[in-house]
């Protein structure tokens, strides 16, 4: 019987991704001969919704753009508004914001471990990492009043003071997480099954990586040391000592090892923040009231390093209390279209979920 190319839909619900996104695959046997990304399941029109609301009202929307890691959205939005309105926040607020961003990074990377291990059938590891992530969410609940959508980083500072004993609890949690990392190494990162499946799969062309605008672990997994926290420092990252983990394989395993290194570095950063955080200082600058908070006719572009790579916002004001235009540029768009469609060619069908997960694609962020 003659071999025929058949077409199947992979998704929109599948283990490779947080959210809904489907792939149209052309299969010859088990081998992929063509892939096209289909999105549109999660479009909520946030960029347009923001234009109809005042700045204070818009602040509550932006965190919903990316579900697994909302805090870089809040930071980008707040920093852009502060830049346009000429507000300088206190050192203490900067430290608290950095702490929130790093906690969110660790939580997001633990969620990623759950996704990546689940995509190759190592379900137990996912159960453990999601439990550990929940411990971070418990701290977020105490600090911000919400577990996932924190709505905490606000133009002018942060909304609440740290609860009593919060930094001690964080310190204990960091000790716990540090003790857990060798366990994750044994059951996941050094697991022969994972290595066998991941090494040499989903190899990104190193020369194209920079040219095509790939970011985050995809770039660092190719051995290229790029990180917004270092290249274009914001908040207090200039005062903190941390490494940028890189790996040279350019494959799924390299990206996993980069993430492994990032958890360790984030824990290191959080320990420094606990040590260096100023005891006193205003957490919130005085800002105008709701209808009187206006930004001048100007525009700005800000970037934050999220757990998936550089995450940027363009915000333009027109002198009123509303934002004229907001544009979100996340890591997922370029990884989900340009890179993924190319990477899947000649790969096995069983590797699709693993490759998608290794790129850290987040459909809510692609569609906004």
């Amino acid at each position, binding site marked *: 019987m003659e071999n025929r190319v058949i077409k199947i839909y992979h998704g929109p619900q599948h283990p490779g991704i947080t959210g809904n996104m489907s792939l149209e695959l052309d299969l010859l046997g088990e081998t992929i001969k063509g892939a096209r990304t289909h999105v549109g399941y999660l479009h909520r029109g946030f960029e347009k919704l923001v234009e109809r*609301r005042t700045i*204070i*009202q*818009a602040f*509550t*929307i932006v965190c919903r753009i990316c579900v697994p890691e909302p805090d870089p959205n809040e930071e980008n939005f707040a920093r852009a508004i502060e830049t346009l309105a000429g507000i300088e926040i206190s050192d203490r607020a900067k430290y608290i914001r950095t702490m929130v961003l790093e906690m969110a990074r660790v939580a997001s990377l633990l969620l990623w471990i759950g996704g990546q291990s689940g995509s190759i059938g190592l379900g*137990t590891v996912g159960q453990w990492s999601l*439990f550990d992530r929940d411990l971070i969410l*418990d701290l977020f*609940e*105490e600090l911000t*009043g*919400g577990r996932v*959508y924190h*709505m905490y980083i606000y133009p002018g500072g942060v*909304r*609440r003071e740290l*609860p009593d004993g919060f930094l001690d609890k964080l310190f204990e949690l960091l000790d716990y997480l540090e003790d857990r990392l060798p*366990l994750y190494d*044994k*059951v*996941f990162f*050094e*697991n*022969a*099954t994972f*290595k*066998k499946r991941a090494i040499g799969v989903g190899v990104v062309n190193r020369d194209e990586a920079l040219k095509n605008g790939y970011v985050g672990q995809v770039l660092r997994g190719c051995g290229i040391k790029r990180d917004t926290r270092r290249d274009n420092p914001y908040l207090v990252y200039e005062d903190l000592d941390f490494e940028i983990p890189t790996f040279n394989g350019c494959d799924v395993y390299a990206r996993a090892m980069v993430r492994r290194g990032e958890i360790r570095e984030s824990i290191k950063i959080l320990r420094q923040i606990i040590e260096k955080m100023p005891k006193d200082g205003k957490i919130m600058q005085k800002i105008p*009231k*709701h*209808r009187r908070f206006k930004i001048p006719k100007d525009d700005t572009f800000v970037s934050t390093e999220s757990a998936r790579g550089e995450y940027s916002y363009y915000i333009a004001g027109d002198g009123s209390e509303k934002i004229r235009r907001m544009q979100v540029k996340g890591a997922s768009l370029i990884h989900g279209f340009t890179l993924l469609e190319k990477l899947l060619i000649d790969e096995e069908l069983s590797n699709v979920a693993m490759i998608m997960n290794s790129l850290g694609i987040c459909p809510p962020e692609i569609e906004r």
Partner: protein
Amino acid sequence: MKFSLDIKGSITPFVAVGRVFEEPKTICYPFEKKEIAKGYRGFHTNSLDKCIGCANCQDVCMNDAIDMIPIKEDRNPKNSSGCIPRIDYGRCCWCSLCTDVCPPSSLKLEEDCIWASDDSNNFLYMPKDK
């Protein structure tokens, strides 16, 4: 395909077996309940002794979830509009902006956050007087 045996990588994952003897991490809901953190953004409460009916909460709500409802009894004499907020929990996103802008700090969020009803009208929530 080249065959190679990763002995260490094949043995180390078995450390997971040791965790079989650990206590379970899950809780047996509803017999056992998780403690909710102090300051959690749950249901609204409104102190009628303090509420001045200014409708700032209604103005700031980005989801149009707050309606000002007339009230006759038990109201603050300074409540000039004679109205108090009612929240539509089908629209509310618990952002807490309404409590931030409340001038007398009468509107607050409490830790209680579990709500189930088979009637959608019950989601038009009148905050408890606290």
